């Protein structure tokens, strides 16, 4: 499909008039925004922090949900560690009283995480999620070390 050719045959005066008309048309568009406050799209972020919601699938940082007893689903299978393209996850295992291999520390380096979701897809036990709370998004920090997180709350469970 060819683009419609641009008409060139107008008289110069008619063309100038049309050009002025186009300028005014543009001004009408901006005017429409000025007089209609409902078209303002700004959301004032720190103020609306309390009411801010993210979609359920939103990929904030990786979190490990714990139930009421402080238990999590992780079996230290290290599938997520293998799935991660950036080596952001290190699963440090330990032995519990029954001499069973369990999760010691789930080390998660937010600083090198690309929030790609692959670890979550890899986990067979649904032990980790992508957080979609405000806290999972605000990750700015003055120190790099603050971005090395340990996701499980207690060791050796």
């Amino acid at each position: 499909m060819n683009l419609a050719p641009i008409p060139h045959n107008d008289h110069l005066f008619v063309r100038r008039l049309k050009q002025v008309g186009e300028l005014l048309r543009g001004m009408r568009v901006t005017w429409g925004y000025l007089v209609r406050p409902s078209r303002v799209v700004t959301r004032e972020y720190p103020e609306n922090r309390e009411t801010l919601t993210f979609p359920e699938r939103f990929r904030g940082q990786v979190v490990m949900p714990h139930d009421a007893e402080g238990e999590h689903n992780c079996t230290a299978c290290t599938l997520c560690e293998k799935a991660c393209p950036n080596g952001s996850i290190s699963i440090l295992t330990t032995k519990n009283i029954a001499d069973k291999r369990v999760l010691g520390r789930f080390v998660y380096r937010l600083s090198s995480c690309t929030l790609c979701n692959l670890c979550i897809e890899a986990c067979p036990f649904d032990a980790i999620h992508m957080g979609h709370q405000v806290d999972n998004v605000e990750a700015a920090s003055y120190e790099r070390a603050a971005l090395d997180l340990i996701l499980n709350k207690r060791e050796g469970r």
Partner: protein
Amino acid sequence: MNTPSSPSAPAPEHRLPPGFALHASGADGSQEYFLNMGPQHPSTHGVLKLVVRLDGETVVEVVPHLGFIHRAIEKMGESETYVQYLHLTDRMDYLSSHINNLGVCMAIEKAMGIGVPERGEYIRVMVSELQRIQSHLLWWGAFGMDLGAVTAFLYGFKEREKITALFEDLCGARLTMNYFRPGGSNADVPENFIPRVLEIVEEMKFTLDEFNALLSANPITISRTQGVGALSRERAISYGCSGPVARASGVNFDVRRHAPYSIYDRFEFDVPLGQNGDCYDRYRVRMEEMRQSVRILEQAAASFPEGPHRAKEKPVYKLPAGSYFSSVETARGMFGTYIVSDGGLKPYRIKSRSPNLSNLAPIAEMAAGGKIADLVAILSTLDIIVPDIDR
């Protein structure tokens, strides 16, 4: 280039730095000087550096310097599995990340003979077209800003945000999507996906009219773009341009039409073609492409099927030894993925043919003889994504 053969050789009077090919004009009393546009400049959109040879305000020659954001994505790909590599393609042309993902997925599918269920194909097409509109909206805003109409920039972003929010619901990300997987996509669409697409489609029609009113026929825009930076059909082909840049020069090539992938052959759409290859044609081609994408979206939404969104997932993606190629049409042109596999878990070599490098190539030819302002307009209508050039 007249580089002195030995250090002691007298330096020629009008020696030019490396990269400049044209002869120094007006050697006697030449007024030429060099200007570094970038890597930090408002209208190079990222870290592109253009070394410009100027005569007053007139551009004599432009030499792009690349490599400021080189991350060796292709080399990194060799040490990552195929699925892991997907998320790196997000970071090439970040405004077409869905489509880049799709390209890699298609190469893997081709190699392993994975089919995609009907619904998965529909999702692919719809998401690709949404992404194309989203990318063009951002381009429109940036184009307005490069020309000095800052308001357009905000309008472009405002409209783009609606699609970005949809993507956020769809895959949880706004820019680096990592949504498509070999055999489909990593999740089904949310329930209200189709109604929201239809809503966006309706709004887009109004938006495009508004954008046309603000900028398209504005005499200042026309005087800044018409006849500026013309690229002939022959030159566009020999530079390997693709996408809207090539189509504005009259090259009738669109991967969606001429090598249909996914289920593009089922939809009706036109491939807009320009005649002059100037900035204004590139502008109009993109505006028209948005309308065509809206058309595709409407058709796809009307026949969106039920069913699984992804073929049965494989535990590992191991490509048989050999080489595989796939190409898709991103918002900027043809994105090719070439995979050489030695049968292992990771590619032996993975190569992307990204549209932006070849689209940037003609800039020296297009800008020569124009003004600095023309250079900005040209760069803007080429719609360069620098991380895609450097990779």
